[in-house]
């Protein structure tokens, strides 16, 4: 009877541990990221801000070192890579301040940009969505708000994981099995 109790307790303890292990194994860090060009469907964004947002994003993702490869919009090298995620961005709000006003008054003239960021896998499935704000309050030109946004977005990208992809050997094995058994 005692043996049965012990076995039950052991089973109860081990089962969650095993399931956690399986769940952890099923997630992996993406190796690459493709940055899509900044969209601004709802607000009118000056061209220099659009380009500065995009370039700062690429720079910051490189600098953080989270991803081995940072691909630009339309880069053919990113095609057909399941270990790559895609960053879609859409500007939701923009307030252009004034550098002169900031320097003269200290409290007024701030520039702020609100951007909706969506990280997806190459299949288009959303992995993470977040609204990120970039702003400049005192020092620097208006474009510094884009750098602030890019730093925050690159930090958010660090925590993203994607479903594990089967290794080549496993993939060959799964080809013989029904489609429902393969992992995606």
């Amino acid at each position, binding site marked *: 009877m005692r043996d049965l109790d012990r076995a039950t307790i052991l089973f109860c303890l081990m089962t969650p541990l095993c399931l956690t292990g399986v769940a952890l194994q099923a997630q992996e860090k993406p190796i690459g990221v493709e940055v899509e060009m900044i969209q601004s469907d709802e607000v009118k964004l000056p*061209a*220099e801000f659009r*380009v*500065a947002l995009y370039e700062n994003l690429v720079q910051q993702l490189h600098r953080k070192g989270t991803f081995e490869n940072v691909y*630009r919009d*339309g*880069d*053919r090298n990113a095609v057909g890579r399941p270990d790559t995620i895609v960053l879609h961005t859409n500007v939701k709000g923009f307030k252009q301040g004034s550098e002169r006003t900031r*320097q003269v008054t200290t409290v007024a003239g701030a520039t702020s940009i609100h951007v909706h960021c969506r990280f997806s896998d190459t299949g288009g499935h959303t992995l993470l969505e977040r609204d990120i704000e970039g702003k400049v309050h005192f020092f620097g030109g208006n*474009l510094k708000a884009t750098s602030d946004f890019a730093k925050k977005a690159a930090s958010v990208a660090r925590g993203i994981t994607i479903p594990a992809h089967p290794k080549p050997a496993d993939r060959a094995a799964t080809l013989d099995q029904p489609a429902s058994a393969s992992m995606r």
Partner: protein
Amino acid sequence: MLRSLVGVLTAFLLVPAFGQMKADYQLGTITDVVARTNGSPEDSVTSYDISLRVGSTLYVVLYTPPLGAGTPQYAAGRELLVKVGEKTVRFNDMLGESREVPIESSSPLEPAGESIEADPPQAPVKATLVIGATGVKDNSNGSLTLEKGNLRFVHSKDTVDIPAPSITDLITGSDSQRVIRGTAGTISMFGPYGSGRFLSLFRSKLDTLTLQYRDPDGGLHGLIFTMSVGRAELLKRQLVAQGAHTTVETQKSSEQGTSKVSETTEQKP
């Protein structure tokens, strides 16, 4: 009664005289400032060749700043009222004192509205790369030239070449920057009695040139340049003539109503 009538008549006579005085002065824009040195690097700069655009004429005047009046290196883009004489240009300095500088040369500027092919080959344009070039630090000063269908930016030993046909969008804009900037500008902001804030009021105008292009792998790049007033639109016209694409028509073609540039609108992949 007679005295008041004479007073009113005198006032009426003086009005056109003031109007004439104001009409003599025109709005001019400083487009370039070149320091003169005597050859040896030890010599401090004492005078400057200042290019001044007034109407459709470009004047080059010799300016020698008075002692303690600061240096005009960063005056490009500044606008001021000037009175152009036969051999001199008169203007009021920041303290309101009238000054006269000799004209070294004058040349007519090409009026807007002529054909794109008539644009003369452009000399290197001093520009600042704000962001975007791989291998070149942001906010680097250098020169922009158009050579053999390539837009070339040179900063010390680094060179960036962009083929004009690979440019998918080309947009000009305007901006301004603090006259006293850099480290000195930052330190000056902490000046006593709000002097730093006062200095922040003095800003010079700039042109911005924003372009997007695709590399051989299809990757999209963006670049932002700033340069003296009036240079960006000229550079844009020349780039469009050499095969660059733009989503915003150049000033010249929009005035003429031609469809030459509108045919070259951005084609997204």
